[in-house]
């Protein structure tokens, strides 16, 4: 029942393919294959030709189906992009809160439809600008936020009930989200009206991105606190964005990105159910995902399609979710930073356009396109405008949004989607057998799998087995430098002054009471969120709150696996 092709078609295909193979055997003498092995950028082997035979075991109704229907291979929404384009959500942040606020307003003027914050390293790691660990880092890789005062500057004149904001923040996610909630409160916007996403995905930090504070177990506990708080009080907020992006940037293959990300997702769902006793359908619809769109066009499209189908099965069969919204995998996409080259940087515009197109054909809900200069520095205003225009051209000029999941049914696309799903399940099962993701991380399993893949790829580049244009092929000797954005050293001085001023002005007794209350919540298992919100309103700093976590839960140190 429901097979993709009739036996007759498969037989006919076999016959024709056989004939074709014989012809190829003759012509191969004149033009032999350029390579002995053809593979994706992740090294997945690709056949010369795909035919109906490659998907003869697929069941149309079960495996492909219609958009908006289980298993959502063809998208969550029955109407695709015809109802609404994906959200144009450019990742930005640099210098001070005022600098970043200005960039946000510029992007909104240019047609961006959602906000996304990049924080600097001290903020990401839970340190204030005046920490000795923060020297030289202030405002360099994103915006510096120490207190609610900075946060209010960041969201100045941003209508928090209308624009959704994504915050790329992990160890201190509860603190930054508390600032968002407190800022909404100050602006008179109820928590039920604010929408956005905190990345809040710690497992991938241990696996790949390496911004961490506390060990994995208590880190996941704080995440479950945010999931519980969001479910009760901030219903439009995505409390976790389960992220493969950084796993891929750290050098994983597409299959590893798919498998480790979804297995991380399983871990969060299990923890919220076990620790908080929550009903899966009460919070699963607000889980979101984040994938990398790398340069290998079809591999990326198939990865995203496979992700939706795997997650639908996980939610329905493993967690017995009943609400169809719990079965959806909604995701943001960012084009691959690691695919960009410092050499001939204008080529990056082309790479980004192709990667963005893959994200769209993969059915992303939200997209960030990298700027051509991001391999060298934070993007300039001019380069970020080109990157945003890239999305707008794809949406409004190319016609790819005219129909839903236009590549479905292709022998190659469906076969590669199946292959990626199959390979991802192998990893998921293996991690299950290890006792889950935290146990796997303790063993260094995902870390070393990624290190292997990254090293293999670098060797392929060094030996010209894979091509990076401008790096190991078509190299030019004379290159014109491009203008890049520099962060003034004054940013750090001014931030230090503002922080000192806040510390002088605030009621320090209230702050120490708040921090004490938070510490008690940590040790007694109470939800930390209300205590965080109270503390940030009294101008406790980011680091002061994070120090409470460090004290209560201990600090994690990079084991330095390679």
């Amino acid at each position, binding site marked *: 029942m429901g097979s993709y092709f009739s036996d007759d078609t498969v037989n006919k295909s076999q016959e024709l393919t056989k004939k074709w193979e014989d012809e190829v055997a003759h012509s191969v003498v004149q033009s032999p294959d350029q390579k002995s092995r053809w593979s994706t950028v992740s090294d997945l082997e690709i056949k010369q030709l795909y035919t109906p035979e490659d998907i003869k075991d697929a069941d149309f109704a079960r495996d492909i189906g219609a958009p908006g229907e289980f298993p959502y291979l063809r998208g969550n929404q029955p109407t695709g992009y015809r109802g609404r384009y994906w959200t144009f959500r450019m990742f930005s942040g640099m210098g001070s809160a005022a600098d970043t606020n200005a960039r946000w307003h510029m992007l909104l003027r240019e047609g961006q439809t959602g906000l996304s914050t990049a924080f600097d390293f001290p903020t990401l790691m839970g340190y204030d600008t005046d920490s000795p660990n923060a020297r030289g880092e202030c405002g360099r890789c994103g915006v510096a936020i120490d207190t609610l005062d900075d946060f209010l500057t960041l969201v100045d004149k941003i209508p928090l009930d209308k624009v959704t904001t994504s915050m790329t923040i992990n160890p201190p996610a509860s603190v930054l989200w508390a600032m968002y909630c407190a800022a909404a409160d100050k602006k008179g916007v109820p928590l039920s009206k604010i929408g956005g996403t905190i990345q809040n995905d710690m497992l991938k930090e241990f696996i790949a991105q390496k911004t961490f504070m506390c060990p994995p177990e208590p880190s996941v506990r704080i995440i479950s606190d945010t999931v519980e708080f969001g479910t009760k009080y901030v219903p439009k907020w995505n409390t976790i964005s389960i992220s493969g992006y950084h796993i891929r940037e750290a050098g994983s293959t597409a299959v590893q990105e798919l498998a480790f990300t979804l297995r991380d997702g399983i871990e969060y769902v299990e923890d919220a159910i076990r620790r908080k006793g929550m009903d899966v359908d009460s919070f699963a619809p607000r889980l979101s995902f984040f994938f990398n769109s790398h340069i290998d066009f079809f591999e990326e499209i198939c990865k995203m399609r496979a992700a939706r189908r795997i997650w639908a099965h996980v939610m329905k069969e493993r967690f017995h979710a009943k609400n169809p919204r719990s079965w959806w995998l909604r995701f943001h996409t960012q084009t691959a930073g690691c695919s960009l080259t410092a050499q001939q940087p204008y080529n990056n515009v082309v790479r980004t356009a192709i990667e963005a197109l893959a994200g769209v054909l993969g059915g992303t809900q939200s997209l960030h396109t990298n700027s051509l200069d991001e*391999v060298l*520095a934070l993007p300039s205003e001019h380069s970020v405008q080109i990157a945003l225009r890239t999305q707008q051209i794809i949406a409004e000029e190319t016609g790819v949004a005219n129909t839903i999941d236009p590549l479905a049914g292709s022998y190659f696309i469906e076969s590669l989607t199946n292959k990626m799903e199959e390979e991802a399940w192998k990893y998921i099962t293996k991690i299950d057998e290890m006792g889950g993701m935290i146990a796997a991380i303790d063993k260094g399993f995902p870390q070393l799998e990624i290190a292997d893949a*990254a*090293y293999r790829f*670098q060797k392929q580049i060094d030996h010209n087995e894979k091509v990076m244009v401008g790096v190991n092929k078509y190299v030019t000797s004379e290159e014109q430098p491009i203008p890049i954005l520099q962060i003034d050293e004054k940013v750090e001085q001014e931030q230090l002054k503002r922080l000192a001023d806040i510390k002088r002005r605030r009621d320090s007794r209230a702050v120490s009471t708040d921090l004490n209350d938070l510490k008690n919540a940590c040790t007694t298992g109470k939800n930390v969120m209300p205590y965080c919100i109270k503390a940030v309103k009294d101008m406790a700093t980011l680091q002061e709150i994070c120090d409470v976590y460090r004290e209560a839960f201990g600090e994690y140190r990079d084991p330095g696996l*390679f």
Partner: protein
Amino acid sequence: MAERRIRIMVAKPGLDGHDRGARILARAFRDAGYEVIYTGCHQTPEQIAAAAVQEDVDLVGLSCLSGAHGYLFPRVVELLKEKGAEDITVIGGGIIPDQDFQKLYDAGIKAIFTPGATLDSILDWIKNNLKPRE
């Protein structure tokens, strides 16, 4: 007497967690026959200098992609000097704009490798320029 094997420390100063390059290099050095120590992420210049002296390394390779190299790299060289270990060669890499190179060379960084540098080019540089410490 067997010749002492050259010891290399790969270090990640500052708060930056982009360790892909550092880990690839650590493997490449190991495969090339060097003894390799990798610090892991989030090391202060003080921790790096102390570990380099303690481990008696011949070379420290610093990797930073956060833009804080201007402070962090020279600080490591300065601290090594304070510890009487100025003969430890220090090289650096990561996202480092061309215009910052001279300042880093002046501060005592011996070589800088940025995106696109091949593993072989880095290994060649070490073969041609690294003198084991006495």
